[in-house]
């Protein structure tokens, strides 16, 4: 994600400390008094998250959380703030929030909690983490893992797997893969792709070799077809 996350904030207006903390941390945010307003005014692509203070107006706060969670595509990464005496309110509301913070809050704590909630989108270290089932590729460290265990690949194997895994379900011809991963000038020709696919399958092991499917007389597909269930 190139832009900072967009947050819906309750109450409206928010306490000055909260507004300052969010501004300093670089979030895009807008405050709402009612959940329906937050939904109606959501940005393109929806809210990336929300910060909801339940300390002064618990009913209004939890109503906001419910509104954000109610839809087909609920807002993930909702952080609520409660006073220490309100901790029992969290019980039976686990579905309404992802993390919480005690109010009055410490700005550094709130910032840390938000950063952690958004680390996949915000942190330069985790940029573009590619995940599919048991497979995870981290382009910033060049490391791959399968079911949590390191998967040792050569550079070209890594680049090939990354290219395929970034586009699960899509069928690529050998020529497309060759030009995208090796570049046009590579001599070995499209057979190179076949040879590297076999090596990748060998390293994925019997159990996971079928992550890469051969599509007869077309090329290769990573993961399940988009059209089959």
């Amino acid at each position, binding site marked *: 994600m190139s832009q900072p996350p967009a947050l819906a904030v309750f109450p409206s207006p928010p306490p000055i400390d909260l507004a300052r903390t969010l501004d300093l941390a670089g979030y895009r945010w807008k405050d709402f008094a009612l959940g329906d307003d937050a939904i109606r005014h959501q940005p393109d692509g929806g809210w990336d998250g929300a910060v909801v203070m339940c300390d002064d107006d618990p009913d209004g706060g939890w109503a906001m959380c419910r509104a954000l969670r109610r839809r087909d595509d609920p807002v993930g990464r909702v952080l609520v703030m409660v006073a220490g005496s309100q901790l029992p309110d969290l019980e039976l509301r686990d579905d309404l929030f992802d993390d919480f913070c005690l109010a009055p809050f410490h700005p550094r704590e709130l910032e840390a909690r938000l950063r952690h909630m958004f680390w996949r989108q915000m942190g330069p270290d985790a940029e573009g983490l590619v995940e599919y089932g048991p497979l995870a590729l981290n382009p910033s460290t060049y*490391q791959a893992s399968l079911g949590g265990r390191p998967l040792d690949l050569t550079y070209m194997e890594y680049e090939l797997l990354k290219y395929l895994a970034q586009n699960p379900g899509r069928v690529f011809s050998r020529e497309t893969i060759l030009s995208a991963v090796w570049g046009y000038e590579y001599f*070995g020709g499209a*057979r190179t792709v076949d040879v590297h696919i076999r090596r990748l399958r060998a390293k994925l092991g019997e159990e996971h070799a079928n992550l890469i499917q051969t599509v007869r007389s077309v090329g290769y597909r990573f993961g399940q077809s988009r059209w089959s269930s």
Partner: protein
Amino acid sequence: MKLDQQREYVLRTVEERGIRLVRLWFTDVLGNLKSFAISPAELDNALQDGMSFDGSSIDGFSRIQESDVLAIPDPNTFEVLPWVDQKGAEARVFCDVANLDGTPFHGDPRQVLRRNLRAARDLGYEFYVAPDIEYFYFAPPTGGPPVPLDQGGFFDLTSADIPTALRKETIRTLETMGIPVEYSFHEDAPSQHEIDLRHTDALTMADSVMTFRFVVREIAALHGVHATFMPKPLEHIQGSGMHLHLSLFDGEDNAFHAVDDPYNLSTVAKQFMAGLIRHAAEITAVTNQTVNSYKRLVPGFEAPVHVSWARNNRSGLIRVPVPKRANPLATRVEYRSPDPACNPYLAFSVILAAGLRGIAEGYELPAEADANMFEMDDAMLEKLGIQQLPQSLSDALRTMESSSLVADALGDHIFEWFLRNKRAEWRGYKTHISQFETDRYLRSI
């Protein structure tokens, strides 16, 4: 720039995986794997400039006065060694050997193969190889005759299962290292196994054969077993070969395949085969480089003796396997004389050179020999124009010596050193008095 990214990738992997030791691998002229280890701190420099070492310590490398050479790691061959435990993780990388000024070192077999592959590329071809490698598991050698594992005695309990378990572990390790296995099975002979590797470009495959021999022996040794690629370890039992399935690709297309031929063989394939047949005797010293190799190339054990080809005749030198499901990509020729004790870089080099000569000169492929040649007498063989492979290392060296094709393919440095070294081996053998002679002559004469 791809090379910089590859170096960066290797350095980052070393850091992320906590690699303690990087082994730089290269191969001497005889095909022995050589290695020295460097610490991760030295790797960046090694990838940029190479690591200098004393080449005179390696068989067939430098003469004393020009002894220092550079090992330049090929970052695309960097692999973490899977059998070393995670705490002391180690990796290996194959190296090209260069002179101090950076030019290719002529004594390096990997550079020799690179040069021959470039010649093929200049004609528009990429050379693909798939080997079927046979080997034996024995009890650790004691100086006496080798003891096969599954003949009882060595492992009292589950003697038959242990070699099979070893083979399975070996295959798992190979696959983890990016060497895909096509088939594997227990061969006819006791304790003999075969593992067939999936085809890939010849340089990668030569590296894979080196890794293969290392992994097979390493896994066996971890279990107190000795694995050997000796071509003929047991007198009355078939030896170990390394049949090579060969093809040339022209980009996406298999240059050996033709739709309109009854055997689906293209003109290029036939000329390539004709080149192999015409020059087979010249290249045999390289594909079968030990005294012992010639004890495998005898009648009666499915090893080739005659220089011939056939679609399905396992006594011939070249077989043309029928591809599964008539897959055009699988059309290939199988060259059956090489054994797993060869230097794969040099063997692939001379085989390719012989085949390309056939294409360049437009050689005519002789008729198929589908009868059993072991039942033919010399007169019949001569009438059919079928020659024999060299009968001994000495024969093979004599034929090689007069071959400009082999001299060109190997380059003068290796050609001359190889002949010198192998003649010395033959001289050592010639003066040896064997048990055969003692048994046969001592009492009776």
